[in-house]
């Protein structure tokens, strides 16, 4: 009898300890005197410092304190925070994970109430809209462009008149640029790159509530990449021993790559590589590029939502966005600031120009697993059957779309 009592007492102590560890500290809903934590997926020191500086400026004027934490694995640290009941007060929310988070009730839909909600690019607002509610404010954006190594370009005897404007001139330029040590064109073989070719051919993945993945247009996009690879003028970064295509460009292993404004990050490793960014060449059905963006996420039911919303308003103001652009090269998410950016940084003007016709990659809830499955299939695109890949994408994506409704 006493044994059982003792055992029960021990178990009770154990449970108390376990639950005590999960207890939350409570805060108020006011806009001052708050301690905020921002969790960011930083591209490097410059970004972390710029965000901390901006947060400090806001903290001083508003009477709060802000701590900026750079995550080493943003997704993992976010889900850990949410599961533990202690999510950060503000965080970077990637376009690819946004719908998954929104559909699971992780995000506070504050964005529509922002005073500057009307200033953002419409396609960015669409990206961060869940169930027709503009949920979180886009932080900045990037589009894809064609980045050309100008030294290799000149060495191949090419001039400004040869800058690719369509698939044919892209193929011709890639052929001329390909040598024994350099491949003409390189980009990571994934939906986020190959998808632009599918779109340029007139394809799309989702049209309302139907998936249109297995269309001849999408197939034409993939077949063009297959053709370039067969001709030896396109290679995956891994085929030229590069971690990503930016590295291939910097090391001179690829003369042209398809990347975004973040390409400027290669300056640390390859300070002597000269390059120039252009709009992506048009396909049979016109121009197309992808726009990628992060938004400022605020957790649902957060005790600091008012202060955090106020901080977002400050961080997305035109002046502050230009400060971020100066510090680490992102394009502002508001039309007015992006225009200033284009005139201040003419070398990146083509990325801003791309935003006129850019589309957001598919990002409804549950699409991420299907897209990563498609990416996995693309690994065997060369020598493989593009048509069956699109067929399997069609089946899986439609199933995911039906489940998302």
């Amino acid at each position, binding site marked *: 009898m006493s*044994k059982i009592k003792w055992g029960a007492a021990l178990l009770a102590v*154990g449970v108390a300890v376990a639950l005590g560890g999960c207890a939350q500290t409570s805060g108020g809903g006011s806009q001052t005197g708050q301690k905020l934590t921002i969790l960011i997926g930083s591209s490097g020191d410059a970004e972390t410092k710029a965000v901390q500086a901006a947060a400090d400026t806001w903290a001083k004027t508003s009477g709060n304190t802000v701590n900026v934490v750079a995550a080493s694995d943003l997704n993992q640290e976010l889900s850990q925070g949410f*599961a533990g009941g202690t999510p950060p007060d503000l965080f970077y929310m990637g376009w690819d994970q946004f719908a998954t988070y929104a559909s*699971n009730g992780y995000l506070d839909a504050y964005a529509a109430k922002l005073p500057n909600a009307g200033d953002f690019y419409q396609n960015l607002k669409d990206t961060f809209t869940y169930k027709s509610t503009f949920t979180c404010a886009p932080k900045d954006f990037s589009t894809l462009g064609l980045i050309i190594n100008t030294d290799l370009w000149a060495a191949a005897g090419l001039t400004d008149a040869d800058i690719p404007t369509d698939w044919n001139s892209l193929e011709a330029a890639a052929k001329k640029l390909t040598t024994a040590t350099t491949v003409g064109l390189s980009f990571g073989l994934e939906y986020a790159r190959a998808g632009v070719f599918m779109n340029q051919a007139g394809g799309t993945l989702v049209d309302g509530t139907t998936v249109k993945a297995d269309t001849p247009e999408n197939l034409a996009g993939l077949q063009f990449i297959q053709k370039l690879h067969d001709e030896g003028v396109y290679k995956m970064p891994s085929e030229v021993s590069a971690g990503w295509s930016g590295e291939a460009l910097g090391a001179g292993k690829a003369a042209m790559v398809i990347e975004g404004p973040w390409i400027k990050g290669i300056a640390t490793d390859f300070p002597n590589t000269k390059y120039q960014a252009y709009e992506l060449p048009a396909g049979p059905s016109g121009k197309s590029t992808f726009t990628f963006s992060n938004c400022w996420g605020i957790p649902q039911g957060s005790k600091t939502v008012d202060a955090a919303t106020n901080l977002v308003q400050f961080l997305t103001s035109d002046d502050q966005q230009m400060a971020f652009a100066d510090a680490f090269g992102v394009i502002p998410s508001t039309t007015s600031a992006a225009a200033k950016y284009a005139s201040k940084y003419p070398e990146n003007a083509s990325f801003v120009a791309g935003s006129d016709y850019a589309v957001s990659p598919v990002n409804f809830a549950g699409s991420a697993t299907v897209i990563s*499955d498609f990416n*996995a299939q693309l690994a*065997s695109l060369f020598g493989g059957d593009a048509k069956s890949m699109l067929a399997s994408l069609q089946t899986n994506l439609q*199933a995911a779309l039906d489940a998302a409704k």
Partner: protein
Amino acid sequence: MAKGIRGAEGRYGWAFTAPAIIIIGVFLVLPILLALYVSFSNWHGLGSPIGNSSFIGTTNYEKVLVDPGLAQKDFGTSIRNNFYYVIIVVPLQTALSLFLAVQVNRRILRGRGFFRTAFYFPSVTSSVAITTIFIFLFTASGAVNALLGWLGINGPNWFADPSGVIHNLLAGVGVSKAPAPLTAPGPLGLQWWDWISGPSVAMCVLIVLAIFTTSGTFMLLFLAALQNIGSEIDEAAEMDGAGALRKFFSVTLPMLKPTLFTVLTLGLIGTWQVFDQIYLTGKGEPGKTLLTPAFLAYDTSFTNLNWGQGAAISFILFLIIVALTLLQRLILRDRDVGRRAERNAKRADARLHAEAAMAARTSTGTGAGS
């Protein structure tokens, strides 16, 4: 309860074991029970599972095992990948570690201490560090391919090659597309043709890596067991005329059976749970041929926020490991114990007695005759 001179002992016993019980209970038993509950719930990963989720029966398990779809196919793919990994790594690492242990146990070997340290070294190095080095060694123009090129072989693009080795061998004899009977859907949403793909070229690198890093640890286990075998047994075997090979297979190996069981069990558990190498080499890339159940469980939970499904995968993996360990115990069981062994022993005993009696009778018979 009778209270004698030892009445309070039970109480003190509980008091002294309490720290261990509390630690194990709070950090091991409770989390496992909670995870088991999560695998039957629709928890979204918001707050504690208790109070923020509801019981939804076996839906999570059905999605992974029964319902056709991406979740089932991914699970099937991960099981296939890991199966090939286990079936190659476990026997090879056991054989290699046993071989190394026997070599460094030989008395005539000079510098035994050096070799023991050298073979054990990969085991004490972090698997993250070794994997990173392997990634550099096996890039398209890395050291391995440079060496192969020197020998006139055009090496594959190791970590980016999703093709299965059995598929590649079949392609070598002209079978590059699935023959009709193999296009039939197999278990877990994968075609039979996909099941027989063999490990991908990328997986082969990880297989080599695993054998390289773990055989040192197991060598140590075998070495300890070898040193426990008395030299008189060796001598007795030699006196009976057993050669080196015969001695190894008929005397040494049977005596190592308990250690062999340990090594195989640890090997099985470790290889079914491979995670860090997968995380580092691109999260299942190339072409999902490096996807393993352990990594899939992580990815399903942390990236896709399908915590219930992730927990379900973990528990299926747990059941697979338990089942395989039991099976292996059955195969390696000692044939000297158990009911059948007793019957055999009795029969052998009876035969021995009968023969002895017969021999005694004939000998007395001849004695009487002379």
